[in-house]
């Protein structure tokens, strides 16, 4: 898992870290049961405040994406497979909406888009 903090970003540091960890979990790069670095280790590695990393883990725990086990550290939650799937579906839908808007700009009909998608889908499956 890579985390990159940008000073140029308008997002606060904790949001940046949170987004990247969430992304890693939702994308499947981190799987249920994988352990995450401890709050203090992550703070050291990123050279940020312990409070910042603590807040990140607390927020992610609220989203039920990670579990923290006292004395053992934090793990990617396995209890919430449906939730993760739901989240990923939501993201997929967002992207689809984007595609629909884009196709409208190109004055494609619904059928055009479906046809195009089917074509690409088949191509993808054969490779």
């Amino acid at each position: 898992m890579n985390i990159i903090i940008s000073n140029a970003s308008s997002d606060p540091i904790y949001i940046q870290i949170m987004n990247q960890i969430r992304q890693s979990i939702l994308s499947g790069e981190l799987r249920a049961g994988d352990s995450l670095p401890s709050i203090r280790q992550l703070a050291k590695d990123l050279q940020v405040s312990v409070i910042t990393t603590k807040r990140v883990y607390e927020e992610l725990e609220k989203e039920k994406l990670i579990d923290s086990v006292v004395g053992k550290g934090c793990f990617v939650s396995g209890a919430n497979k449906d939730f993760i799937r739901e989240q990923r579906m939501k993201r997929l839908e967002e992207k689809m909406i984007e595609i629909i808007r884009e196709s409208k700009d190109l004055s494609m009909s619904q059928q055009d888009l479906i046809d195009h998608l089917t074509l690409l889908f088949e191509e993808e499956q054969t490779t």
Partner: protein
Amino acid sequence: MNAIELRNLTKTYPQFTVDNVSLDIKQGYITGLIGPNGVGKSTLIKMMLGMIRPDSGSVNILGCDMPKQEVDIKQRIGIVSDDCFYYEHLSIRDTKKMIAPFYKKWNEKKFSSYLEQFELSPKKKIEELSKGMKVKFSLAVALSHEAELLIMDEPTSGLDPVFRRELLDLLADMMQDERNSIIFSTHITTDLDRIADYIAFINRGKLVFSEAKDEVLERFAIVKGDSQLLDSDIRTKFVGIRETAVGFEGLVDNRQEAERLFGNYAILDKPSLEDIMYFTAKGGRIHA
């Protein structure tokens, strides 16, 4: 639990006064004591160390009373400063021989490895050390007696940028144990602020605020815009303002209010600690 508890500390000097300062330094975290030069940071630190006796108020370090349990406290704390006064004519080795027997938990192995890491030769005399090297030496001493609390007075002022980054790692290493705490004072906002959890801001002998750094940075905002926006009512919202012929730049301590107030008429920026320090010192408005 708090690593340090200051209660109503007052110390009056002819030139200035440390005025009724109460401050908690939390255990397990790094706290930065910031403020312009000569506003009482060093006096506060010296009172924590029992070097200066307050006129009134109390100091409690690691649950022990200063000065009653001064010796116990000093076994458990490390002091880093660029004016730690060692005997100038002695070598590092002799100075270590002098210091080590005082500590119950002296770790000779750790000490030699720090000397190596900091590229300090044991044969070097104290008078030959640069300011930065003296800080490194006192850091080596502090880290070699298993200090639970590190008190650093202006530690980075004599350090080169390369070692400052290394220092961040050393301090973060110490903070892997959540029972440990660090407090440092500084008048320049350095890269040390990156890892600070809490910020206590001192100005003119008074505590302006003491809170989590992230909260401070989210609460304050820099507003930039046309000087015509400033009427006497609006001015009171600012902690400090800098006006020029081409506009104004000011600090507000309530970002949301400023967003409502200025809408799209002005630009709101994230402040740095330096901005906060500059405008507060300039404005001179004190608020708890």
